[in-house]
């Protein structure tokens, strides 16, 4: 019975997504009132799933012949993803989205994909969950920008192909696709070149997927930018799926870490410094968010590079903060997020949204006393303990650049006057609704509370790292 109870959160999310797809089709005036309450229903489903997960996921066990792992790592990731998706849906401006049905269903499916990755015990589950999250992103992007969707599809397909090659070679080398089995088989293995190549290809594909968002967002889409929710999905949930997969696979191939450690360090350094520098170079809030998220992803990868429990625990902790901020913040900015001028004086007109956007940006930049600061500082300590001082220095520099970028946008939100009424050519501000305002307030509370209650959350993340087999 217990093992079926464990599947309730996933079932709820998938059923909720299917229901949203079906219910969203009703567009006649008779059902309009119902349609407007669908986001609230979706949020309720996600929160119920999170509550069930908290109850049922507290056990530690394996089911279905090792295919389903129930551990604290999975519990932490699932809670973070469900919360992030709920926050993103709650704060979204549905007037700026292309389809209510798909806008609700795709994030839920992407969340399901991350949940599958988090609780998967073998390569197949990891790959399937990752592809599901990626596919949801492609659908969302393609709704408004088929060309962007196609580009993401091609990039994702390339990453998937690389990943499959890597998985296939690792499977061929060790003779099993189970993560625990891979770890066990590699314990006595020498880090040879034939083993190093597939591992590098595999991790490279994952990192490539994790950092796809800036490729999509950084390019100027002045005429017809993708919808805010699609950016949150790609930058938050799809990237989170890749990072979670990277965490699981890097721990599985940990015994031969010598073959990929330098590579991980270089990637982390590039992401941290490059993310911060790119965030400074662009001005549009949405693009800044994507680059800030890429920079913080670099910190998470750096945490993985430490290869011991505190570092990976801190990376998991930071991943939770990252996925919440990166998923919900683009939705909080709404369609106006594509232009710095459009969000000028947002604090005057939409104070709750401005506060949510500011807190999310500061957290992504690692500013104290928010969750990003706690996570990055802890990873910094772990980096120093593991002797990665050069990586630490680059990361701190990246954080400084990120902070400058975040302050630049917050200044626009709070210290500039709104553009004149009727000024043409600017995207509209998000429509004010009671629900979305409550969503923005809840997002503020989640981001602030993540830092305030860092101890219990970090403790759970640390248990997650322990569950991965790290000492």
């Amino acid at each position, binding site marked *: 019975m217990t093992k079926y109870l464990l599947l309730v959160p996933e079932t709820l999310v998938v059923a909720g997504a299917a229901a949203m797809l079906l219910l969203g089709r009703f567009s006649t005036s008779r059902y309009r009132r119902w349609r407007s309450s669908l986001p609230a229903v979706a949020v309720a489903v996600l929160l119920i799933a999170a509550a069930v997960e908290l109850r049922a996921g507290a056990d530690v066990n394996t089911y279905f012949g090792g295919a389903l792992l129930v551990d604290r790592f999975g519990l932490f990731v699932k809670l973070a993803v469900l919360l992030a998706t709920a926050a993103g849906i709650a704060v979204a401006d549905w007037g700026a989205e292309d389809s209510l049905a798909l806008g609700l269903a795709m994030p839920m499916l992407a969340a399901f994909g991350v949940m599958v990755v988090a609780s998967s015990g073998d390569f197949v589950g990891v790959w399937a969950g990752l592809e599901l999250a990626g596919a949801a992103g492609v659908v969302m992007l393609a709704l408004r920008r088929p060309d962007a969707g196609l580009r993401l599809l091609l990039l994702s397909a390339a990453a998937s192909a690389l990943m499959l090659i890597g998985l296939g070679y690792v499977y061929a080398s060790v003779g099993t696709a189970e993560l625990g089995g891979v770890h066990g088989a590699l314990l006595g293995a020498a880090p040879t070149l034939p083993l190093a190549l597939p591992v590098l290809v595999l991790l490279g594909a994952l990192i490539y997927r994790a950092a796809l968002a800036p490729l999509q967002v950084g390019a100027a889409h002045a005429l017809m930018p993708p919808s805010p929710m699609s950016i949150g999905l790609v930058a938050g949930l799809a990237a989170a799926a890749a990072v979670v997969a990277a965490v699981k696979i890097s721990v599985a191939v940990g015994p031969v870490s010598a073959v990929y450690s330098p590579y991980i360090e270089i990637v982390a350094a590039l992401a941290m410094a490059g993310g911060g520098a790119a965030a400074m170079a662009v001005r549009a809030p949405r693009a800044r968010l994507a680059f800030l998220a890429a920079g913080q992803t670099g910190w998470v990868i750096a945490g993985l590079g430490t290869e011991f429990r*505190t570092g990976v*625990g*801190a990376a998991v902790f930071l991943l939770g903060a990252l996925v919440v901020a990166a998923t919900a913040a683009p939705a909080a900015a709404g369609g106006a997020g594509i232009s710095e001028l459009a969000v000028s004086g947002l*604090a005057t007109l939409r*104070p709750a949204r401005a506060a949510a956007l500011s807190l999310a940006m*500061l957290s992504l930049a690692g*500013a*104290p*006393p928010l969750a990003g*600061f*706690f996570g990055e*500082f*802890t990873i*910094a*300590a772990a*980096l*120093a*303990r593991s002797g990665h001082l050069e990586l*630490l*220095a680059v990361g*701190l*520099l990246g954080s*400084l650049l990120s*902070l*400058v970028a975040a*302050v630049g946008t*917050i*200044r626009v939100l*709070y*210290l500039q006057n709104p553009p004149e009424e009727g000024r043409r050519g600017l995207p509209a501000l998000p429509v004010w609704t009671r629900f979305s305002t409550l969503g923005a307030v809840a997002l503020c509370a989640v981001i602030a509370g993540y830092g305030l209650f*860092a*101890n219990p959350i*970090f*403790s759970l993340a*640390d248990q997650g790292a322990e569950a991965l087999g790290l000492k």
Partner: protein
Amino acid sequence: MIAGLVHSIASQPFGPSPSPATVPGANIFTSAFILSIAIWAPVLMAAVIGVMPNPRGRYDTLIKQIAFFTNFLVLFLLFVAYNQFQNFLPSMQYEENRSWLPAIGATYHLGVDGPAILMLMLSALIGIIAVLASLGIRTRVRAYFALLLLTQACVTGAIAAHDLFVLVLFWSAATVPLALLILGWGGPRREAAAWRLVGYWGAGTLALVLAVVGLYVASGGTSFDMDVVLKNPIGPRAEVVVAVALLIAGATRLPLFPLHGWARDVYADAPIGVSVVIAGSASRLGGYLLLRVLVGGEPDGAKLVAPLVAAVAAITVVYGAVAALRSPDVRHAAANLALIPGGVTALGLAALTPLSIAGSVLSLFAGGMASALIVSAFATLSDRAQTRNLAVLSGVAARMPKVAWLTVLAALGLLGVPLMASFTSNEMTFFGAFKTQPVGAFAVAAGLAVAAIAVAVIIQRVLFGPPNPDAPAVSDSSLSESWYLGLLAGALLWVGIVPGGPKIPGTDTPLFDPGLVNQMVANIPEISAPYSGTSATP
């Protein structure tokens, strides 16, 4: 009570140094959360101000009152704490220690010793003065005062922190609200000022994080608590690295040459209230960091970098004086002059003698007040004279007598003339430093002489020179301007004339008693005072 006090004083044996004395009146008021209240009350009120509706500025006055009375409450609490403080107790007081992030050994550990209580008094006083100096703010009042209160909380938190994680948190957190304050309400070059501040202070924060992480790792990687980290030997190589990183962190804040690049633009273009906070308390954190972590925590590292610190101190003072003399802008001149007290503080720390360190502690207070006074007095003067150009400003004393005299007091306070608190701190620093850093002390003294020339030239030209008929119209200071400038000048004079400072009747805690330094350096034989290590029993 008086008889008891007289008896207790009479019963003290006369000797070369003061003996620990029971503090009459101690423990009248106790609170387990006094430091937390001082830190978090401004944060709470900033949140209240931030969310309270203020349609068309209807509640601007109320918001200003909330900010003022919040700072007043904090000052009152710290005033009581200061009066209850026991000088010769070789341990932290008002401690709060709770587990925060046990996985990495971070604790919410607050506590104060002598220098810290003095810095807290400085910070609280500066907080009130900053609000008074900001009463003229008319736009986005809610955001301004919320950010000001957040800054205040960050400074207080950094002073009270006794855990390096907490120190880094508050130290770095101050940058964001200050940058936003300058960006939102600054002068014509506010962009450059704000980004320079973020750049320099950010670089300082990076150096501090490196030093803290280095200390953490070198001491075993189990705790960030200063009681643990700073008492473990870390090895000579790590000491050099940590000492240099701490010096960079401190020098970006204090600021010291060559890391002073933010000071001119920030002091010249920040709103006056923000300039007061930065010059008065936020920048003093640099000296406080060097004192607490470098000198108090890593004395061997401090010895290694002492000649470098002395050289930097000397260059800073000379540079500040020469740059002020050559500056064409009155606010730039004030910004350059405001570098000088930081140099004096650094000299005292470089000398590493009991007297020089005591002088440095007092110099943090006196220098903060003097820097804030010179920056704000010149800013008020230029505002009231409607020009910052020294070629235009001339002979305004007759038309703005209040500002003129307060500016003269500011200049005297900066130079450290007798009856000013800075006189005492400078004397203590020099007398202490001539023994171990004679060249540095001589250079700093020479720099002060150049500064005196610069101040004399500027004041002669601006205040007492022939009036310029082509200059814009001039008006004297408003009531609030007179109040905040007067409070700054009054604090400098009070501590200079009555060193005991303000006291609750029946207590006996002089503001800059050398005993205040004892707790920090009690475990360092070479620099601790001869009476250190003894404890008073209440």
